[in-house]
């Protein structure tokens, strides 16, 4: 005879069992926040440990004039080969191969005297976005390594785990053990502020990967020079000239093929970063973090998509829509379809990141069709505004975080310092010296036209020889641009550098860009919600105004658009970011 499952006795038994489990579970899962007890305030280095210093940099490689970047130093290994540390890294079987069975790993071990056991973890989902499930499970489950390297933590996550005590504050350690990081902070003064937490502490080692052309890439546009010549026009410099070019393309079809698209774009390439900047300074939503159309104006956070200048820009796009050069396909075409159209030579003008966005494959033949496409510098709008989209803060990368489990944080900080040395960094990035890379000779020319520093055969380096871009690096702009190019076989980098150069003079001023800020947990949830609805409204309305479904010349349509933003509480979104901006760490 079973008593009913809902009898009083059974409920009591179940409750007691449940409470018991909860108590045990609580004591296991709750990590007592412990380590990192260094006093905040000015980082003064660790007491009783002499500060590490750098010897004179090596001179057996060639630096261009005015070079700012990493140097190489002759230093002896600081470890004695007995200590082993566990570091969690990003898994990448196609490029790095087996982290523990890798030529660079062996070389780094030789140079530092520290053994590292790498634990590779998958951090990307199948759509390319970051997937931190495994990392979060490790952190919450107490399965801590000694450090994380190259894992894409957001600054907010760094702050959170730092405040919980999982990551150690590293300012004092950097001051004592890492002279190279100190030098990086001098060369790039804004860098620490980008990665520090609201409590003022720094919970990560700092890395720099300053890609010159990336600073302008979401706002670049390309036009086919051959087709331009065929219709007898020059590269447009004003919005009106572009309009004429597009009309000529449409009417004369210089490609001679059916299905020619005077203006093509894909659903993942936004248009406002290029066009709206001819009317006002507009960062769009392409800055890291996808902040929706916010900029700074005299220290005040401002939304750009409801300003009068935006309306003027919409009128211009509306005109293009009426001309028939801006069509629905421009907004809805899939990325792969754009590439197919590019392959067939059907594209006249496009707003794209680089040639690979509208060509696939992109091989390096000298007569490859993608070479016909040249960058279109920012256009001057009817009001005389001529800005280029620019990112002033895009150079920081994932670094190395030391966890509270590490028995010797100083050793890991010093290890990081050693791998940031130019010579070792070239190993991590380029693989085996003399096999895949070498220092350049006198007279070799780099991407920026100055004396080259290194020459490299393949990137990524052959599997099993390098660490791709996951190490903590100091890859300054000068260093990146000092890679040798063969003038007879120009690669993409040189072309992208040239394109970037065309945009740089027009970049909107730095104090127009809202720097990356850290939102508190409550704020970030609210901001994420608002971001979704705001982004949707801006994109859909942009398409509707351009294609004529709404008319920017019509006051009623424009006011209804403004009202929709008020209705979705746009002001709260702006206020959240104003608060975060005012309280950001330096």
């Amino acid at each position, binding site marked *: 005879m*079973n008593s009913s499952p809902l009898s009083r006795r059974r409920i009591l038994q179940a409750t007691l069992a449940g409470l018991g489990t909860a108590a045990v579970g609580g004591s296991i899962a709750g990590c007592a926040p412990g380590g990192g007890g260094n006093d905040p305030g000015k980082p003064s280095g660790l007491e009783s440990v002499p500060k590490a210093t750098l010897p004179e940099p090596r001179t057996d490689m060639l630096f261009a004039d005015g070079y700012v970047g990493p140097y190489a130093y002759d230093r002896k290994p600081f470890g004695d080969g007995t200590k082993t540390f566990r570091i969690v890294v990003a898994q990448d079987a196609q490029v790095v191969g087996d982290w523990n069975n890798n030529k660079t790993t062996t070389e780094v071990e030789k140079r530092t005297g520290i053994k590292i056991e790498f634990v590779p973890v*998958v951090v*990307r989902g199948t759509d390319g976005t970051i997937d931190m499930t495994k990392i979060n499970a490790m952190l919450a489950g107490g*399965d801590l390594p000694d450090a994380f390297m190259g894992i894409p933590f957001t600054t907010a996550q760094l702050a959170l785990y730092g405040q919980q005590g999982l990551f150690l504050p590293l300012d004092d350690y950097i001051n004592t053990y890492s002279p190279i990081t100190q030098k990086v902070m001098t060369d790039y003064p804004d860098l620490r502020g980008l990665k520090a937490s609201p409590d003022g502490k720094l919970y990560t080692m700092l890395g720099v990967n300053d890609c010159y052309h990336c600073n302008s890439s979401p706002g670049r546009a390309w036009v086919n020079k051959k087709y331009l010549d065929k219709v007898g026009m020059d590269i447009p410099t004003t919005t009106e000239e572009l309009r004429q070019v597009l009309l000529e393309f449409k009417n004369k079809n210089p490609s001679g093929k059916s299905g020619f698209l005077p203006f093509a774009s894909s659903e993942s390439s936004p248009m406002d970063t290029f066009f709206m900047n001819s009317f006002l300074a507009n960062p769009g939503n392409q800055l890291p973090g996808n902040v929706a159309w916010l900029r700074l104006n005299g220290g005040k956070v401002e939304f750009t998509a409801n300003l009068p200048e935006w309306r003027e820009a919409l009128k211009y796009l509306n005109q293009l829509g009426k001309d028939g050069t801006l069509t629905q396909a421009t907004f809805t075409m899939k990325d792969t379809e754009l590439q197919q159209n590019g*392959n067939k030579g059907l594209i006249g003008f496009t707003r794209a990141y680089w040639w690979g*966005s509208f060509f696939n*494959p992109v091989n390096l033949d000298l007569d490859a069709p993608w070479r016909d496409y040249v960058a279109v510098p920012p256009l001057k709008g009817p009001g005389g505004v001529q800005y280029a989209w620019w990112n002033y803060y895009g150079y920081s990368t994932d670094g190395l975080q030391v966890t509270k489990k590490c028995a010797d944080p100083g050793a890991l900080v010093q290890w990081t310092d050693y791998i940031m040395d130019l010579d070792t960094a070239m190993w991590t990035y380029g693989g085996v010296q003399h096999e895949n890379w070498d220092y350049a000779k006198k007279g070799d020319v780099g991407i920026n036209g100055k004396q080259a520093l290194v020459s490299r055969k393949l990137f*990524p380096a052959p599997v099993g020889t390098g660490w*791709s*871009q996951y190490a903590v690096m100091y890859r300054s702009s000068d260093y990146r641009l000092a890679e040798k190019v063969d003038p007879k076989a120009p690669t993409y980098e040189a072309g992208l550098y040239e394109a970037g150069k065309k945009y740089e003079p027009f970049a909107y001023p730095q104090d127009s860009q809202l720097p990356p800020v850290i939102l508190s947990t409550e704020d970030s949830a609210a901001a994420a919600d608002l971001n979704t609805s705001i982004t949707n409204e801006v994109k859909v309305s942009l398409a509707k105004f351009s294609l004529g479904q709404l008319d920017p010349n019509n006051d009623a349509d424009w006011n209804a658009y403004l009202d929709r933003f008020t209705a979705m509480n746009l002001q709260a979104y702006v206020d959240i970011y104003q608060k975060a901006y005012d309280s950001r760490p330096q």
Partner: protein
Amino acid sequence: MKIKETAGDRTFNVVNTAILVTFTLMVLYPLIFVISASFSSAEAIANQEVYLWPVGFNTDAYATVWESPNLLSGFGNAVVYTIGGALIGTVLTVLAGYGASREDVPFRRVITIFFLIPTLVSAGIVPTYIVVKQLGLLDTRWAVLLPGAMSVFNVIITRTFYKMSIPNELLEAARVDGANDFHFFFRVAIPLSKPIIAVNLLFYGLAQWNGWFSAYLYTNDLGLAPIQLVLRQLLANSQIDPAMIGGGDVTEILKRRELFDKLKYAMIVIAMIPPLIAYPFVQKHFVKGAMIGSLK
């Protein structure tokens, strides 16, 4: 003597055949396309020239798979997990299902409720991770085989099967003949359980073959990864959008994209062929077993 078909019969046959043929083609075409694409050149695929038969026939993709160590070990691991997971799951499920079906088991209702609770109320990723970690299973093959080894849904199906196909009278008759419970289970119940064993083997085998999450969460060593996880990682690493690559090294983007395009279809074929081959053999039992839920 052939029975003459009425006009109605004939019409029905024609329409029926037409609909079935259409469905078959709709299902068959993607299969043929994938196989053809796996033998075509990457450019032809990018330009959408492949419709039915391979364009630019080559076996590059399969050669790359053969050379790539992880992909082959992934295939081997998947076979190990499929067979191991199917066996473990079936043994546990049949034992549990049989036990739950016998009315003379004490505390039967409590046990059934105990089984149902985790199905309805799952603790989530982090507590499960902690449990697996503390059992010392992290980074071993058992971490893929043991968590979730038995699905309560299958236990219920098995229980229903036993209730319906092994009448109480049979048990009493066996008792009269002097059989104890174990004799009865091994000598009478198991031989009668062929359909349900086949169903369980198939369900668990397929779940393990298609599964990647346990390996993703609990193992770090790529040598333990089943093929779906390797595929997933290949896919994830090829989809990097330029802004996120932290440096805009476009050659890296290209190389990844190229590798993925080359391998995508070959990977699908490799991942899909074994179940395709195994299925016709288990189908007979599967159909019989799948009807278990319906009333006799």
